[in-house]
């Protein structure tokens, strides 16, 4: 049986360069009213390590979360879960850019059973995507 390693995760990553300072971006990640303008329809968010959060989305889905990382203007992370589903961990990283602005990186991940290091998932996911396309077109 494959080894069960909770520290290995499958992940989706997105990056954006935002025309705002890290402090301004940080506010949109941690203030309930600002979060409700982009992340979800309604948000409760206790931006402290161990704090609770609650999200309601436009489609009616709700998620409860626990915030585990709060590094001012650098890193924010929580684990969220909808009823009856696996938990996902969301990590947000901020980097100030020399030319001005902030690079925001979002990583959402789920635990998986694996003996391969997380960095090897890139080629596998590309294979998965191309294999999927060829199967559904068959």
């Amino acid at each position, binding site marked *: 049986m494959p080894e069960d390693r909770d520290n290995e995760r499958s992940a989706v990553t*997105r990056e954006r360069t935002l025309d705002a300072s890290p402090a301004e971006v940080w506010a*949109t990640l941690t203030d309930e009213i600002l979060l409700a303008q982009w992340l979800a329809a309604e948000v409760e968010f206790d931006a402290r390590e161990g704090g609770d959060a609650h999200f309601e989305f436009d489609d009616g889905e709700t998620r409860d979360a626990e915030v585990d990382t709060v590094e001012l203007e650098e890193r924010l992370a929580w684990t969220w879960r909808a009823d009856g589903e*696996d938990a996902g961990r969301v990590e947000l990283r901020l980097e100030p850019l020399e030319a001005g602005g902030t690079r925001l990186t*979002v990583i959402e991940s789920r*635990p998986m059973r*694996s*003996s*391969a290091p997380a960095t090897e998932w890139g080629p596998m996911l590309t294979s998965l995507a191309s*294999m999927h396309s060829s*199967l559904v077109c068959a």
Partner: protein
Amino acid sequence: MRLEQNPSDDAGAVFFALADPTRRHLVQTLGDGSSVTPSALAANLPLTRQALTKHLGVLGDAGLVTKTRAGRETLYTLEPEPLTEAAAWIASVGGAWDERLGRLESLFADRRG
């Protein structure tokens, strides 16, 4: 035939199964929908029978192959549904973040007027 399939639960097992190049090769070999014996699967691979059985076991755990018996032979068939679900998880989560980040970008753009 598996009953209820939750994309988030199965995605991990599928990712693990496909992390190995030999298993990806097996999946692609089976990809045309035929049912294949272990000997035929092992034909072009430098694998011991034991290693092949282990790989097929991992693929079976992920729901990617099913095995049936035809007489004294065992046949393996690809079940593409878990691939679809894993891909669906990637697409769904990625798509959700694309939408959210688009709104976030707009917040800053609107401010410039």
